[in-house]
């Protein structure tokens, strides 16, 4: 898979942020981390973010650095809008400009971001952690029975009990099937287009 350029990656993140917000998401860093993890996998495009098991499930240090760089460049900013929550990420006017300049080149990824935003925007951190970790475990052990994957999830995140883990794995099964239907072969084209 080809790796996207920095400008396109910025535009992709801005696109995801805008769509998550439009669906009512609070848009903290955890939301972007987990949504981008699933988005990158479904789009079959290498955004250049390597994910490992860490804070609240799959986590990319590359993406963390990228968000930091985007904040430094004035593309995004932090805002404290929800009582009790940590910072929420907002797109700035400059970020909108970067998005506009690159919008055409990321059009083929729109479908994936739409799908992921609709799915995850209303989730809180607790359920994002469950879902993204279930996705991670399923991706790594696709042929294991549901219960085995649930046990694996529980061993990685002991505060997620087995019942909740099993439920999360089943949701992933359904969503992956739904993604296959709703985001057909177009995903395969992305790497060439981008």
């Amino acid at each position, binding site marked *: 898979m080809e790796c996207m350029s*920095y400008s396109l990656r910025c535009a992709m993140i801005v696109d995801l942020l805008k769509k998550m917000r439009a669906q009512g998401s609070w848009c903290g860093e955890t939301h972007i981390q987990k949504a981008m993890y699933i988005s990158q996998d479904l789009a079959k495009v290498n955004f250049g973010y390597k994910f490992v*098991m860490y804070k609240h499930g799959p986590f990319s240090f590359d993406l963390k650095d990228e968000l930091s760089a985007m904040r430094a460049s004035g593309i995004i900013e932090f805002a404290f809008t929800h009582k009790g929550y940590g*910072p929420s990420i907002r797109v700035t006017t400059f970020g909108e400009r970067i998005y506009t300049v690159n919008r055409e080149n990321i059009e083929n990824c729109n479908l994936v971001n739409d799908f992921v935003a609709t799915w995850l925007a209303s989730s809180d951190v607790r359920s994002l952690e469950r879902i993204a970790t279930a996705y991670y475990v399923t991706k790594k052990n696709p042929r294991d029975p549901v219960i085995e994957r649930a046990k694996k999830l529980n061993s990685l995140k002991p505060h997620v009990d087995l019942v909740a883990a099993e439920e999360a794995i089943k949701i992933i099964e359904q969503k992956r099937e739904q993604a296959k239907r709703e985001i057909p072969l177009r995903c395969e084209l992305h790497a060439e287009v981008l």
Partner: protein
Amino acid sequence: MRASPLYPLAGLTGRFGPQIAPSNPRNVGHKEHKENIYYLDLVIYSVAIRQRGGKIMKHNHEFRDPIHTFISLRTDERRVVDSRPFQRLRHIHQLALTYLVYPGATHKRFEHSLGVMHLASRIFDVVTAPENIFDDSVRRIIPDEEAKRYWKSVLRTAALCHDLGHLPFSHAAEDQLLPDGYDHERLTKDIIRSPEMLEIWETMTPRLRSDDIIKLAVGPKKADPLELDTWESILAEIIIGDAFGADRMDYLLRDSYHAGVEYGKFDHNRLINTLRILPLSYADTDEPALGLESGGLESSEGLMVARYFMYKQVYLHPIRRVYDIHLVDFLKSWLPNRIFSTKLKTILGMTDIEALAAIRKAYDTAKSSNYALAKRIECREHFRFFYSASPSDKDGGKLIPGRTIAAAAEASFGRAAIRYDYVPPKSSAPNFPVRRYDGTIESSLKLSPILEKLPAIEVDTVYCDKSILADAVRWRQENAAKLLDLE
């Protein structure tokens, strides 16, 4: 036998000192003298634990250290320090060629690694103390006493080993002089799994698993395919965490001390004493994370401000950075196949000493093909910077303007006369849980405007050969705005 203040090694046995204390320190036999020199930096006071057959056996050892005063370690940890891979760190400069700009910055990875072990151990004791744990979600992840002893030993060992895989001159040459897929963390993993080190882990008490050492030494980002659970992630964060990892604390304090730059200081003792493992209740998750009591918030701000100034003043100093580039130029030309070997035997035999000797030799031989490259380093004939991006340079939509300037400058002046340096903005806003006086938990970024507002630092600089500096400056004045779509 009693140690005297004049001769602290007296009275100790075996490899740790002479068996019979000389009445006069000057009358030390040759063999004893050699041993004492070898362990000159290991000051052993009488902390003898037990006696066997009239000989005193020691189990605790201490290093004198300019930052932490004394650093203690156990006998089995001494085996790690005495190993060939660890002793090699005595010859790897912590800050590469920074000493050409800050002459005092000649310290090595060896003492830094000891310092990281010392701080990590202190942090572990604070965050696992029962009186510092307030929530069941945290109590659940803390193991029982026996497992705690095991993990403390793993943590200390991992802290000692976290830099074992560094190439000569630390980070300076790493990106460009290793094959794809390799970095110093991967080499660190290879060394921790090497037969020499496996033998040490086997004989330690408790016996240590090499995978556990690796997880904590390189952290979740580089441990792949190993996976870290919540407890292991927190322990790894104690060593290499962004917000208050022992690695960061030690290098800021140590680098500022040696460079003679006061900015790196902060109240690390207060910071360590206020560290806690806390639930992230404000973020709606049950997974605990490393955070701190609100009383330590100013110390944490102090660390981040220190980091900011150290990056501005030392680590990203433009002349220091261009010496890294010249060093890479030389090493590329000098090394077989233009890259470092990843064979452990070769890596372990390669330090700054070998590379510096090669630079001196090339400079002493005017006919050497590497003469000009060596001369840049030996005679301070480094390139000069003629363009450094300002925030407004991005207004035309080019997010990395220096890259555009460098490409155009190369076309005008030739590739040999231009060098480009880019470092993306470093993360500057650590988000961690803070426990307030009323027991509620809040995000650090919400409580601290300093942490939230601290600017990121970016390097986007173009250098040119000294001989064309005036032309390059004139060229930049005439062309930069057009190249960056700012007209």
